């Protein structure tokens, strides 16, 4: 038997496959991973601390910059926590606009995740094709909010503005085209033999471990746990829509990826229904909220299903116009916590596949 020696290698902080500045200190035996120690914090900007010196409204833009791929959902999560704290009512039309824009944001995030995952396993074309559709979504979101990535669309007790004239029709058109695009990804990426060989049976995750390690989102559902907050604890108006929660079987990289692809189809379904329903609802898009926001003393924790998993906001108020404490339960951060155990025994190439299948956003991991 040959005696081998392990060595350490820095995977990152600047590495094409780490989706940003993220480091994994690998202990390798040849190409096999003995230990993978994630080092994060390279993008820690202290948002939680900054929030304490900002007014409640001023915190909304900071939430944008955490998960910058699905900012709409981040705004929504924060706003929901403060609304829960204050007991604010949200007008129906605003809820619909939130659902529509949130799902659109989720779609954009999933499209990007799909493309980047294709890039991670070496298929460059899939990556750019996904950007083609993403641009269409960005156009719509920009028309709605005025920004391509950092929306700050949600407001306490409503949304910033109503949908412009003809916007819903354009969205409807995109949603008609979307299944075709997703079929295209299925053909180019999902159906590819090499892609399947790279991702199936790789980085398996049992349902028990997934729950034990508080993983959420497609990572949890890929392991076969049907837990989606939109169904489990319907917030906002998600109980009005008919959609399914895609779950995987084996909990491998492919299942996690494929959950995302199927979730896109469900998002399309939700948006289509929401467009149908919002047409009949006319009303204000913003409830009566005082200009100087001073929530009563107390704390509130609200969570929503973001594109990466359960996004929770814990807000403590001390009665002034600035939050006493804002904590974000970042799904990417917690999903990443199991990377070490998940990647042990696999090859470097598999680490890339595993990391890509978790779909992290460093802005959210490091906060």
């Amino acid at each position: 038997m040959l005696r081998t020696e392990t060595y350490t290698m820095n995977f990152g902080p600047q590495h094409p496959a780490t989706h940003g500045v993220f480091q994994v200190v690998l202990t390798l035996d040849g190409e096999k991973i003995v230990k993978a120690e994630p080092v994060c914090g390279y993008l820690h900007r202290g948002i939680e601390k900054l929030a304490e010196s900002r007014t409640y409204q001023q915190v909304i833009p900071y939430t944008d910059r955490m998960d910058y791929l699905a900012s709409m959902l981040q705004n929504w999560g924060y706003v929901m926590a403060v609304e829960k704290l204050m007991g604010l009512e949200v007008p129906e039309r605003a809820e619909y606009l939130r659902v529509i824009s949130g799902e659109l944001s989720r779609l954009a995030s999933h499209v990007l995740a799909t493309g980047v995952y294709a890039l991670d396993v070496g298929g460059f074309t899939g990556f750019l094709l996904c950007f083609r559709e993403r641009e269409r979504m960005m156009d719509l979101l920009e028309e709605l909010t005025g920004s391509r990535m950092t929306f700050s669309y949600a407001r306490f007790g409503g949304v910033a503005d109503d949908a412009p004239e003809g916007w819903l029709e354009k969205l409807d058109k995109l949603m008609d085209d979307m299944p075709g695009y997703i079929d295209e990804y299925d053909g180019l990426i999902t159906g590819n033999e090499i892609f399947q060989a790279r991702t199936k049976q790789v980085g398996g995750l049992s349902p028990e471990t997934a729950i034990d390690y508080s993983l959420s989102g497609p990572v949890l559902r890929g392991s076969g746990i049907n837990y989606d907050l939109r169904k489990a604890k319907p917030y906002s108006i998600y109980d009005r829509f008919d959609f399914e929660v895609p779950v995987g079987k084996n909990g491998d990289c492919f299942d996690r990826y494929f959950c995302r692809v199927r979730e896109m189809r469900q998002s399309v379904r939700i948006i289509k229904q929401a467009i149908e329903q919002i047409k009949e609802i006319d009303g204000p898009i913003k409830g009566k909220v005082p200009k100087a926001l001073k929530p009563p003393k107390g704390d509130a924790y609200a969570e929503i299903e973001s594109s990466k998993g359960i996004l929770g906001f814990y807000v403590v108020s001390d009665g002034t116009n600035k939050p006493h404490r804002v904590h974000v339960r970042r799904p990417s951060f917690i999903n990443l916590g199991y990377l070490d155990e998940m990647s042990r025994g696999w090859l470097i190439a598999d680490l890339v596949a595993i990391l890509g299948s978790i779909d992290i956003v460093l802005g959210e991991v490091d906060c």
Partner: protein
Amino acid sequence: MEVTNDKGMPMPSELKRLVHFASLEKVLNMARAHSIWPLGFGLACCAIEALMGTNGPRYDLSRFGYEVMRPTPRQADVMVVAGTITTKSAPFVLRLWEQMAEPKWCIAVGSCAISGGPFVDSYFVVPGARQIIPVDVYVPGCPPRPDAIIDGFLKLRAKILDPKVVEL
């Protein structure tokens, strides 16, 4: 041997060599200006726009020939600092910059890379890329649109083609 200029005035031989060198430099600058390879290196939100969005089919940076993302700093010409530099990431950003081969340039994309942006008050943020590396082009925005980033690249092109622009 005495070296003279075109008016017949004597001049030091080093100068003659330098003058030649300058005209060669002009040709090389033309080549450099049209082949700026960015380092595929993203820090935060702006990276999505600056490195992915601009490369996407809509904006297509490849038209200018700048789409060759190099994964390693040795082969890159321009460092696109796209995102917030934190105290923790500053040393390695600097190291990446030092690993890049001369001649090299730097584009600071987004308000975080310009001045710290919305995170300037934070305890863990380096306010702007210029604190650690020299920046050639600033592209404002939070994050800037891909069009603006392409414009940033073109500004850099103009700068390389005519280094005097800097003195303006």
